[in-house]
């Protein structure tokens, strides 16, 4: 398609609007957003403390969800293995820096969504053509599917601690994901997802139960030493942690969520606050996991090669059954919240690319085309995890490789869009934001290229 035909997408929707019921649903969807915005505005203008608090609780959502969902099952496993292999040294300060980077990147999606009222996929498609649009969409859908597999690995491994078979836990995971997406509309969906996200904080009391030497934790910030020197294995872990901190799906998810929630330009700073709170929670949980295994597992013979089952076993030996079960519960929660976010991300992106009516406010019978891709990807991922002898380790690596190819491209488009005065007006990036963003893109290209090489050509890095 030469130029983005702005009329092409609505035309698909208009054709569907011949169906009176769907037309009503679309109107209701718009009404819901307007009503919610009015409700938030009334609370924001309230002079009472309770009103302000209610406003804060109402406006938070996309930012906290995206950041907590980023501490997914794969992230929990990566942080746990990092703490076991390297202890509390280099990585805790690195995670704080990672959290700041995640905030700077995700904040841009808030502005982009609130100003344009369009999702990330349709912005790329519309501004940079169908070739880049197809590339971004295919990459996102594939990466989301592969990442969902890692989420279901986390869910089945965590549930196995409670004696639940993989079949039952995978089916339960899909059922929870599907039911809240199909039954709930955006606001209750967001609220339920936030309550599930609160479960991510279970790693904080676990870290306290490990009785770490807090002086060591504090000293890590002053003495940013690389444990064991700069080796290829160390670089691999750095890249894995960096890859865990920011991912392509996060850009698409938060921008679409901001649009579906109906945030407007006058709510950008509240969206930024939501994102900052999410980044703080993300760093807190990531640091807690590294402190946990850095205290209890680091220094053991073979600790650098422990898999997640071995780590859970050791945590059981050191913290008892309660500690072991709490960790397993955290792993299940991490997989569940990420599965919810990834499923929605796939559905939103597909809807935006093909011009389907796309909103979690749509009833299932009218928005089935929108809900189907996300739910199908979750069902496929759950089924793959259940295949006996499935090459799950290989799939896990493939996730990283696909993300490594995609992330610099996604960041580049984000940066271009945030400097597009024609669509962003006065909300374009400030010069310092561009300097930081260009630095992140450069770092991503170098790190992801090295990471990709280290995955596919071991020994080259």
């Amino acid at each position, binding site marked *: 398609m*030469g*130029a*983005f035909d*702005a009329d092409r997408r609505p035309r698909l929707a208009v054709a569907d609007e011949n169906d009176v019921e769907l037309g009503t649903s679309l109107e209701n969807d*718009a009404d819901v*957003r*307007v*009503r919610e*915005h*009015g409700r938030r*505005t009334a609370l924001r203008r309230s002079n009472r403390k309770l009103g302000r608090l209610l406003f804060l609780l109402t406006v938070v959502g996309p930012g906290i969800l995206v950041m907590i969902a980023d501490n997914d099952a794969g992230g929990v496993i990566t942080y746990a293995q990092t703490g076991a292999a390297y202890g509390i040294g280099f990585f805790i300060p690195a995670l704080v820096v990672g959290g700041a980077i995640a905030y700077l990147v995700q904040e841009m999606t808030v502005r982009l969504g609130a*100003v*344009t*009222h*369009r999702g990330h996929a*349709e*912005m790329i498609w*519309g*501004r*940079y*053509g169908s070739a880049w649009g197809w*590339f971004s969409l295919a990459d996102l859908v594939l990466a989301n599917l592969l990442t969902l597999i890692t989420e279901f690995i986390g869910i089945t491994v965590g549930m196995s601690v409670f004696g639940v078979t993989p079949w039952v836990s995978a089916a339960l995971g899909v059922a929870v994901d599907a039911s809240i997406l199909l039954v709930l509309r955006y606001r209750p969906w967001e609220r339920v997802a936030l309550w599930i996200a609160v479960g991510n904080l279970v790693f904080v009391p676990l870290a306290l139960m490990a009785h770490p030497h807090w002086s060591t934790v504090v000293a890590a910030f002053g003495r940013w030493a690389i444990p064991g020197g700069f080796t290829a294995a160390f670089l691999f872990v750095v890249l894995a942690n960096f890859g865990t901190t920011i991912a392509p799906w996060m850009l698409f998810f938060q921008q679409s969520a901001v649009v579906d929630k*109906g945030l*407007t*330009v006058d709510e950008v700073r509240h969206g930024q606050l939501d994102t900052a709170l999410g980044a703080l929670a993300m760093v807190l949980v990531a640091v807690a996991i590294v402190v946990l295994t850095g205290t209890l597992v680091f220094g053991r013979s073979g600790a650098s090669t422990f898999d997640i089952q071995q780590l859970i076993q050791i945590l059981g030996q050191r913290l008892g059954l309660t500690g072991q079960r709490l960790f397993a519960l955290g792993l299940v929660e991490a997989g569940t919240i990420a599965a919810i976010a990834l499923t929605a991300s796939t559905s939103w992106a597909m809807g935006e690319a093909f011009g389907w009516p796309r909103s979690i406010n749509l009833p299932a019978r009218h928005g089935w085309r929108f809900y189907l891709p996300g739910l199908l990807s979750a069902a496929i991922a759950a089924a793959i995890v259940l295949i006996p002898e499935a090459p799950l380790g*290989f799939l896990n690596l493939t996730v990283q*490789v696909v993300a*490594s*190819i995609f992330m*610099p*491209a996604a960041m*580049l488009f984000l940066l*271009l869009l945030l400097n*597009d005065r*024609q*669509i962003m007006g006065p909300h374009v990036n400030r010069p310092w934001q561009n300097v930081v963003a260009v630095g992140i893109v450069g770092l991503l*290209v170098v790190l*992801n*290229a090295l990471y*990709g*090489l280290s*995955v*596919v*050509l071991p020994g080259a890095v």
Partner: protein
Amino acid sequence: MSEMVENDAQGSARARSETMQPVPLERAMPSPLIRAVFWGLRVYILAMVVAVIIGFMRGAR
């Protein structure tokens, strides 16, 4: 009076609805610098895809 309030509420809702309209989109005309960056991106993607294929072929053996 109540009619006035209702009209005001409807007007306010309409104004809010209008602020939520998606921005019109046209295909961007990239500057020479951006076109060069896009070529760099294509080269990066191609290099990464080739590396992935080589890596998977070696892994399969």
